């Protein structure tokens, strides 16, 4: 078991998401940065869809009540195990009573803590991903106890997982969205040429981009939207839908992020700039 000593700023349990219920209006949820989460599981020899702990800007403090292996990936957080520094991106052995403190990160947004065998909270509608209205809790709280596999088998010497390509650029890869061709040529060009500042109100549901350009698009008859859909509102706000996004929406869908671009954007903070780079399908 893991006991939550401090919850951190915004910490939740996530797996790859809750699939098969979008026709009931249920968001996918799941890890924001899929690339980092899969890497953490891979280092521990877990299936890549195992549930893990996702934390944001300020990590949690966690106490382990059993022996297991853990691994932290994602943004470069400072980690202390019983007050001694331990590295990110490596398997770490923990024993009963050990306390892991995950501090802050100077760059990036989100980190992941994977545990051998995965977090064992109850699956609801096929997933352990926290989401308000589906799971009992939507964030970790002080005093919570998180179930783990009590018996972890020995495993063969670690296979060295390949580190994912770091997100070094501000260019976010996109396809054209269903309403892109309805935009005026000026708006199309501005969307693909300008850089946009990420608003601090961005969260797991959506990243909001502040645009200085005079962009706008008409509302549409409500249609399906997905993670990575870039909506343009009549007042000129760009909204990039993220993992907890609704399943349908009424704003013009002007661009669509690639899967890798969604992970990349989820590591960017309010105030950072991004620009869109168009890919051909």
């Amino acid at each position: 078991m893991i006991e939550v000593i401090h919850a951190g700023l915004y910490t939740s349990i996530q797996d790859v998401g809750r699939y098969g219920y979008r026709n009931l209006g249920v968001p996918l949820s799941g890890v924001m940065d899929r690339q980092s989460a899969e890497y953490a599981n891979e280092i521990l020899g877990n299936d890549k869809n195992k549930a893990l702990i996702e934390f944001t800007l300020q990590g949690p403090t966690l106490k382990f009540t059993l022996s297991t292996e853990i691994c932290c990936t994602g943004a470069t957080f400072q980690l202390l195990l019983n007050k001694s520094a331990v590295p990110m991106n490596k398997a770490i052995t923990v024993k009963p009573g050990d306390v892991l403190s995950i501090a802050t990160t100077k760059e990036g947004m989100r980190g992941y803590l994977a545990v051998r065998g995965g977090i064992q909270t109850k699956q609801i509608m096929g997933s352990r991903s926290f989401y308000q209205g589906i799971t009992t809790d939507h964030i970790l709280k002080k005093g919570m106890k998180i179930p783990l596999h009590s018996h972890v088998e020995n495993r063969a010497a670690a296979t060295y997982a390949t580190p994912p390509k770091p997100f070094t650029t501000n260019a976010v890869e996109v396809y054209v969205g269903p309403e892109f061709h309805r935009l005026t040529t000026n708006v199309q060009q501005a969307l693909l040429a300008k850089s946009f500042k990420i608003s601090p109100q961005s969260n797991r549901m959506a990243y909001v981009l502040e645009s200085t350009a005079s962009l706008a698009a008409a509302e549409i008859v409500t249609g399906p939207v997905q993670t990575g859909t870039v909506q343009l509102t009549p007042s000129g706000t760009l909204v990039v839908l993220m993992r907890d996004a609704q399943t349908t929406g009424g704003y013009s869908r002007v661009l669509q992020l690639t899967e890798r671009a969604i992970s990349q954007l989820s590591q960017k903070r309010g105030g950072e700039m991004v620009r869109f780079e168009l890919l051909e399908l």
Partner: protein
Amino acid sequence: MRAPAIHRVTPRCLLLKWKSAHLTEVSEDIRTYSDWLRANFSSELLEVTPAYTELAIYLNAESHAEPIQKALETFSLDAPQNNSNKIVSRKITIPVCYEGEFASDIERVAKFNQLSIQQVIKLHSEATYTVAFIGFLPGFPYVTGLPDALHTPRLSSPRPRITAGSVGIGGNQTGVYPQDSPGGWNIIGRTPIPLFNPLATSPALLQAGDTLCFQPIDRSKFDDLTVSVRKGTFDSKIDVHD
């Protein structure tokens, strides 16, 4: 049956779009395509998600949109003009208390449409609605069939918290909030019946294609139903017919 335009959105997502003057015109076609896709591509599909005039097709990581796009083009050409598949439809009656604290905006709706409150309740509860699709929130039905006489603009600024079960009117739409959420619709009543339960075998009470009716109940009936919902003895009235 009408054939949709097929758009490839990503390597693993197709969007079917129907041209339609009215929101209700193509809902049967969308259901025919959904059923056909589920029957023929179950190993490629993550899921399909309908809306008023569109159907999104989401594929799993091992699949690619191209062969399914080709198959869809052929299906569109070969599809029978009259849909021969019998579509099973369900009729669901939702009890609504249109009184007091549950109906904070019913007066606004009445005034805007120059009706009495009793006329608003009569019009809203005597109409027959169709669930076009579920979206926005888990279990939130997008419903067609609101009488013109009840169309009322949304509130100028949304309320931060609408209680689960609230029945509202927003523009030409009506619906029920399945959980507490912010919202900008005019609230005219509340149902004690849960629309969404993540622990149930069928988590959502409503599904696309359902016929929906609202039945007025008074406050004491609302309280009785609330108790039977809590005890687990309440059973929603669902009529299934071909």
